[in-house]
């Protein structure tokens, strides 16, 4: 079980998350996909920490921080989704284009 496995897995997770974020119509699902992407990154980072020769702590610390920030992010995102739902009646991503040029 080499570093490569973890890297590939992390990348796979990240790309699946990306696809989810780009393709799904519901804002909530987009958020979930973002969570997946973050976890993908975490896997790679922790893998590097584990397999690294010199410094195998920093990776972990970064992972911790990623998790904390992810948690905060979900909280905020959900609040926004709620507001969106209340004012628009739906959370379909396609309808949210107030910033159209």
């Amino acid at each position: 079980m080499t570093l490569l496995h973890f890297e590939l897995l992390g990348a796979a997770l990240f790309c699946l998350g990306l696809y989810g974020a780009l393709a799904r119509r519901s804002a909530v699902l987009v958020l979930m996909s973002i969570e997946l992407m973050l976890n993908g990154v975490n896997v790679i980072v922790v893998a590097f920490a584990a397999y690294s020769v010199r410094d195998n702590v920093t990776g972990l610390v970064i992972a911790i921080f990623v998790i904390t920030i992810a948690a905060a992010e979900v909280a905020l995102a959900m609040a926004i989704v709620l507001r969106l739902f209340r004012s628009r009646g739906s959370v379909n991503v396609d309808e949210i284009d107030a910033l159209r040029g």
Partner: protein
Amino acid sequence: MALAVFYVLALVTLGGAIGVVTTRNIVHAALFLLAALGGVAGFFALLYAEFLALAQVLIYGGAVVIVILFALMLTRRGELELMDEHKRWPLAAAVSFGLFAVMAAAFTIDAASYNAEVRTSVSLDALGAVLFERWAAPFEIASLVLLVALIGAIVIARSGGRDEG
């Protein structure tokens, strides 16, 4: 033996991820997410990052998925909404796959150069020491961020009523 565990966990995680991304039913998506996050926690364990595995399960499994579920319930109208991809999903798929291919290629090309077999673990007190010495400042800031996010979430969610009109 570890490899076998790795593959099982990989199966679980990727299956969950694919589930989140493709399922029609949102609640299933939430459960798939739970599975995927659980898989990731397993990986942390494999990499001897026990504290992280625990944190992962605790925070993601416990808090995040629950919040998502609440949001799902609040934003649903009657029956489960059937959400399918919007019309330009093939482009997204192509882009994601392309990105994956590039990343995979990048990793595999020079995998040999630093592909070590040995995994070293980090004792908890070592991790704690590092966390509170070198990384003390970011740690405090992280806590601040959490606080702000908390207050922000409340303000946004609560004030919905007032400026509705």
